[in-house]
């Protein structure tokens, strides 16, 4: 049997649906941010369920999902947030590979749990690799599907899918209160003990002004003393930048490559998916860990 190639048409795009892979690396030194999926755990799971190659591109949907009509048969997997997906009106499986046929309609709704859902196709989404990645960089209008979020009428095509045995995982259940472990620094010396005291003991709330670039946290600004301006340096995924106002912002996939504000700490990579799935209003606490103990 020849490998199947899945095709579908976007009937409704959802609030923000972009093609992403792990990110575009090797160009940050030219000022091009990596973009990539926000929730690497859900991303890996979606590709694992289908036996896709590591690095296959998926669709990331934020807050509300897409409505897709399939033009040919293939395999799909849904991970991450629960957007009440339905296949031809019946509930579609989460965290389990399933088949679709030409004419099937897969519809995602408003998010019920979590924030970002991932839809993978057997073989992975076929968009051109730009600078080594299929990720959409919205800021640079680069990569992914024509450098932009999906709109109605777009047609997505998958790479050839050799098929695979059915795989299943337990779906995630995202909590309204999360704890993020972080390593203090790299500008630890710009924050005194009082600032860390506040940071470690505040129940922050995810602000509605959060996006793929960063997660803003409300609930108490940090004492910043002489300010937080630094000579600009590189920013890692999950670094917590503190502006002069004292508000912490966790910098995420669409972060700028460099920035001029001090970072009080950096969230552990294993905990970042929790933040990627945190709806505005989610309570966030930070717990320091020593780099030596990781």
């Amino acid at each position, binding site marked *: 049997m020849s490998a199947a190639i899945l095709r579908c048409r976007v009937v409704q795009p959802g609030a923000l649906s972009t093609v992403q892979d792990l990110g575009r690396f090797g160009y940050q*030194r*030219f000022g091009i941010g990596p973009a990539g999926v926000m929730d690497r755990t859900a991303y890996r799971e979606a590709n694992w369920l289908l036996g896709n190659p590591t690095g296959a591109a998926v669709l990331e949907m934020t807050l509300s999902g897409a409505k897709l009509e399939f033009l040919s048969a293939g395999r799909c997997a849904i991970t991450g947030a629960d957007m009440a997906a339905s296949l031809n009106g019946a509930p579609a499986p989460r965290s389990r590979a399933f088949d679709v046929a030409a004419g099937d309609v897969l519809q995602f709704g408003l998010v019920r749990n979590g924030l970002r859902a991932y839809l993978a196709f057997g073989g992975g989404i076929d968009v051109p690799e730009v600078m080594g990645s299929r990720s959409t960089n919205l800021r640079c209008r680069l990569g992914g599907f024509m450098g932009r979020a999906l709109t109605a009428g777009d047609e997505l095509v998958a790479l050839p899918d050799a098929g695979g045995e059915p795989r299943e995982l337990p779906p995630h259940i995202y909590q309204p209160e999360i704890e993020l472990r*972080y390593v203090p620094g790299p500008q630890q010396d710009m924050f005194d003990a009082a600032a860390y005291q506040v940071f470690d003991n505040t129940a922050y709330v995810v602000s509605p002004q959060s996006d793929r670039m960063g997660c803003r946290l409300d609930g108490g600004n940090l004492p910043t003393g002489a300010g937080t301006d630094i*000579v600009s*340096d590189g*920013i890692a995924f999950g670094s917590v930048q503190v502006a002069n106002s004292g508000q912490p912002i966790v910098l995420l996939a669409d972060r700028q490559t460099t920035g001029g504000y001090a970072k009080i700490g950096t969230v552990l*990579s294993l905990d970042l998916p929790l933040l990627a799935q945190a709806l505005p209003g989610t309570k966030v606490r930070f717990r320091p860990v020593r780099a030596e103990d990781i």
Partner: protein
Amino acid sequence: MTGGAMNSDLAAQLLPVGDSALLVGFGRLVDEAVNDRVRALCDAVLAAAPAWLEDVVPAYASLLVCLRPGSVSLARAREEIAALLAALPAQTAAERRVWAIPVCYKGEFAPDMADMERLCGLAAAEIVRLHSGRDYKIYMLGFLPGFAYLGGLDERLHAPRLETPRVKIPAGSVGIGGAQTGVYPLDSPGGWRLIGQTPVSLYDPERAEPIFYQAGDYVRFLPITAGEFAALTADVAAGRWQPQLVKAGDTL
């Protein structure tokens, strides 16, 4: 405090950034010699190309080295970077690359020139002479694709940013903000005072090298007329334009 590995490079500190990155800090000064160390280490890390390397982000006085999560322990990566640091040559004898950036400093291309004349107490011709009359070193790229942080703006041209930033500045605009000068590679909001515009594309994702210069290179702004601007714009649109290096014999 952080267990930063010290080595022969006494000024360098290796700081953990979460569990998947290390920041090699060379102090907090904007200084040419410091920046040269950053670049030398960046080159060394890229040349060593360890399997765990995800990316590097060189800045004024630091190098962020990002690891592929789960592929290596921080301690191991730190040892490898410390070894590269210890083996860095004291001086890099790289050839000096100077890129020619044609700029039209006139009329519609220089909307803030009149303000600059007033703020600096200089005639436009003198502003152009001072701005184009030297090579600027690229300390780092960041903020936007291909946005170069340049060192060496003449003090007489330092000028405060606009009180209210513009919502949209056209790609290629050349501006001055405080003690810095630079070129906007993309249409972007911004608060720098605009004294000219280049017709060449500093960032072109379709080009084999989307950004043709790198940190450590120099740029020189070459004044052109509006007519030359139009001709170059046509060349760029037709794909006939290629990035140009200033030749060794060229004088300022």
